[in-house]
């Protein structure tokens, strides 16, 4: 390959605003099924719209709509960014 993909794996709460990433995995927990049902499922793209100050909720765009969730909930979602995205 002529160019290197800068892939980075992190959790959704660490993803900076305005960045898009694809979801790799959801930590197994009672909330997992609910998160998946709301669109936070492996393979989907997610974009952070804004982060509310003082550790407030994160607004993100997933499967074509806007979802607000707490940072502790976002920490359950593993995402990967790459330079090509």
């Amino acid at each position: 390959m002529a160019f290197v993909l800068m892939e980075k794996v992190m959790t959704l709460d660490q993803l900076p605003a305005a960045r898009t990433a694809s979801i790799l995995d959801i930590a197994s927990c009672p909330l997992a099924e609910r998160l998946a049902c709301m669109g936070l499922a492996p393979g989907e793209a997610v974009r952070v719209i804004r982060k509310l100050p003082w550790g407030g909720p994160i607004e993100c765009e997933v499967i074509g709509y806007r979802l607000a969730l707490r940072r502790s909930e976002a920490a359950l979602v593993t995402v990967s960014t790459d330079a090509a995205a």
Partner: protein
Amino acid sequence: VNAVRRIAFVGNPNAGKSALINLLAGSALKTGNWPGVTVDKAEAEITHEGMRLRLTDLPGIYDLQPSKTDERIAVGSLLSEPPDLIVNVVDLTNLRRHLNLTLELTGLGRPLLVVLNFGDEAARHGMSVDTDALAHRLGVPVLTTTAVRPDSRTALLDALTRDIAVPGGQPALAAGERRTQVRQIYADCVRQATTKTAAPRDRADRWLLHPILGPVALLAALYLVFKLTFDLSGPLIDWSEGFVTDYLGGMLLSLVGVLHPPGWVVSLLADGVIAGVGLVVSFVPLLALLYLCIAVLEQSGYMARAAVLLDRLMQRVGLNGKAFIPMLLGFGCNVPAVYALRALDSDADRRATAAVLPFMSCGARLPIYMLFTTVFFERHQAGVILGLYLAGVAVALGWSLILMRRRPPGGDSALLLELPPYRNPFRPFLWRTVWWRVRGFLSGAGGVIALCMILIWTLTNLPYGAAPARTLLGGTAHAAAPVFRPLGLGDDWRPVAAVVPGFVAKEVVVGALGQLYAPAAADAAEPAEDLLRQTAAQSAGLIAAIGDAARAPFAGWVPGVFRTEPADDGIAAGVRSAFTPLTALVFMTFNLLLMPCVATMGALAQEFGRRFMLVTLGRTLITAYAAAAALYQIGRLLGY
């Protein structure tokens, strides 16, 4: 004659189900719930082209694995009484998430009709759907509507009366496979124009969710809600109570007067029944306006933003951002607020909020403040009343903090909240939401209040003709007086007697004071005056009240209901002689924090069990007593 066709409306929250069913059924819609957010099922029966249709509006669900109360109601109803037809309402602008439920519904083995709502909005966003392809892929008929357009009504009704086959050939899928299939269907059936211009929502949210301007905007919105509610309702409160007690009551008394009833019957009618009904009616303007403001904020989509803005702050004291709406509703009446808690995601959050909800000063406590502040704090009326409201909120948050510390850490509290695009509230649905909530108050708390007024009358008048101090209430108050001495209220039996009804319903306290200090007021009704002139006077009064209400918002910065005319002379004089400014403040604080009224206790017991209700009751009793005693003792030390 055809049998009734039972049709269940199912869909994700915010799909516009309630607005759609409201469009179909209009006033036929019967509901025992507190919608805006639908938290219980609502039903309507209509006839279209000779076919009887029974429409059921179910609370919003994301899938068929319910995780909270309102979802359990929806899924339970769907599985235990399978309807003849399921109408799946889908927000076209948010098709991918909604299709997940649609696919799950195709596996239920019932006829299914998919209704794509918000078609116009999707088109504006450059989104086009091949409905034929979608219908083919899903194996069910698909219809596009816009709930706010009347012409979609007939098309939808026609579809509801048609015979629809059970979708076949859809194997039950695991959640993961279902998502894959949704992705494929979406890719095949939807064309999205690639022009990505900033949506109006982004322009609005840049300010409304701004780190600094967002909270400022929220405070401004709250100020506006209370300003409008109090300013506009103030003049109407005065008028509506007078209309019932003087006009309707006067008519009733003169009609009854023909029969020459004994004195106690007239007294029971005037001071018990009519005064009770008048009291209930007098809350309606305030509640209607507050609920109208809240419904506009809810249906426009702003409330979701408010919940997001407040979540961090409320989490610090053990509450959820979503609890903001029920707590705001609590300023009207605590009863619908308790039911509104069903929309919260976790049981832990619901209980945490319910435990402190009674400290939100409901509309019923306002007349107590108004009476005492007009007599004792005429110059600082607005300040004192505002202080009481804030004190209630502070006590609620304080208790929540204490309760949070005692809860095991972790818990299942969650905030997963869709932020819908901003939408114009659908006017007919807006009015209906307000009416439902007001009616909820009338049938829930209202009946209790009217009954309590009769009970209080009995207590203050039996044995009939006895001196007030020797009546049942007087005797009880004398016996209970020592308990209230640390509060500075035990010296005279009457303030104690006025507290007693507060245990049943706050709204009765002022009425009880009236009966205690001005028992002669019943004679004031003048049945002799002719009906025509009275009607004219009432109409003029209403016009004047509306005029006052229209001017009030521009009169100043301070909400206007706080500036009331001097209360009824009899009560005012009685209160002036029995209370000091300090004991008046103590009395108001005590009533602010004192146990929820009977109707609220009933709602708490129904939603959370009797034990929870009793614990909450005990907490409020202790809080009210301790706060009132502390206030009195500190006040005395300071020399008041």
